[in-house]
């Protein structure tokens, strides 16, 4: 029996059929036991995210000009600036969304991938919870991108202040998109495949 990914109908599959070419009788989606190539796909995306994360942090994310002085900010220097200038709540939001969440996401996915590959059967419930958290929290990394969108649209071509988007924004946006895809391609059921039996 295989459960359909799209409409969650449990389909009865006889072993004679070729399982790779099967469609759900209710919604017509292709069905498979687990997400295809889940582990290698997730690895590829996680590594891509790690590589993209470097330029995202090294390059400036915003360039602001005040009274003729041009000032470039990276993600980290922006956070430090906010904490030092007293608006630590914003500093904390940006730190959580732009640094803590992406790093946490990448590390948790690597941990889950390794533990699935080692066929570990320890604490599957906690691992599933960890996966759910990663899936839910990832989108909030977009906050910084949205902030830049709004501020850059409002403050432009002024005589005294000017605000421009920096090249890191592209890389950072890519990190967010790639990590969301990575979380999607990981199949949490792999965590449970190593548990032989379940007793109430």
């Amino acid at each position, binding site marked *: 029996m295989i459960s359909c990914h799209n409409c969650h109908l449990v389909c009865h599959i006889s072993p004679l059929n070729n399982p790779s070419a099967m469609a759900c009788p209710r919604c017509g989606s292709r069905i498979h036991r687990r997400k295809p190539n889940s582990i290698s796909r997730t690895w590829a995306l996680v590594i891509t995210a790690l590589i993209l994360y470097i330029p995202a942090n090294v390059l400036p994310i915003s360039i602001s000009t005040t009274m003729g002085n041009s000032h470039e900010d990276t993600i980290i220097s922006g956070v430090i600036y906010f904490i030092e200038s007293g608006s630590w709540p914003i500093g904390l939001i940006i730190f959580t969304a732009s640094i803590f969440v992406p790093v946490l996401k990448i590390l948790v996915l690597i941990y889950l991938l390794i533990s699935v590959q080692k066929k570990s059967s320890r604490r599957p419930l906690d691992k599933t919870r960890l996966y759910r958290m990663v899936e839910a929290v990832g989108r909030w990394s*977009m906050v910084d991108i*949205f902030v830049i969108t709004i501020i850059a649209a*409002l403050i432009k071509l002024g005589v005294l202040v000017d605000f421009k988007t920096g090249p890191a924004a592209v890389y950072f946006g890519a990190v967010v998109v790639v990590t969301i895809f990575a979380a999607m391609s990981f199949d949490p059921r792999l965590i449970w495949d190593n548990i032989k039996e*379940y007793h109430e």
Partner: protein
Amino acid sequence: MKKKIIIACHECDLLHRIESLPEGSTALCRRCHAVLLSHKKDSLNRSLALNITALILFFISNAYPLIEIKTEGICRATTLMGGVRNLYDQGFWEIALLVLFTAILFPGFEILSRLYLLLPLKFYKKPWHMSLIIKFIQKIKPWGMMDVFMLGILVSVIKLVKMVSVIPGPSLYSFFALIFVVTGAASAMDFHSIWEKA
């Protein structure tokens, strides 16, 4: 839901037999506590109402300026789309597209496709290409980020207040209301009962 159904948990694949699920209750997986099914109260009417409200608020939110600032004697206002246009003009078309899709298009498509499903069902008809639309809704769901955008607005207002005077635009209020309505509209949907009905 009187029929007996068999369902596999979509997070750990444990099979469950659900005898009956009273209205307003939710079935959780015994092993990993994921939500298996939830039988929502009056799902069709509630989600229809919330989605229509969401559609109206969505138009208001996109038609009027979000924030207005005053500096050096000039006023400048921006709509959501204006922010996207500005990124595009600066040459950051990748981010412009990302913002366009996550903050405007996907949330809009999601509301429209939910209405596309719900309206015919209300009149006891099966919507055309129903399974395709349901698949589409589930595909784009993780990419609608209006709630994140709202936080982005709040952070930028706090940032801007230090430099210039900020006036909230009309669509800021409707955007704020939209976040709650859209969240309600999404959670009122009951795909299981849609599959059963059709």
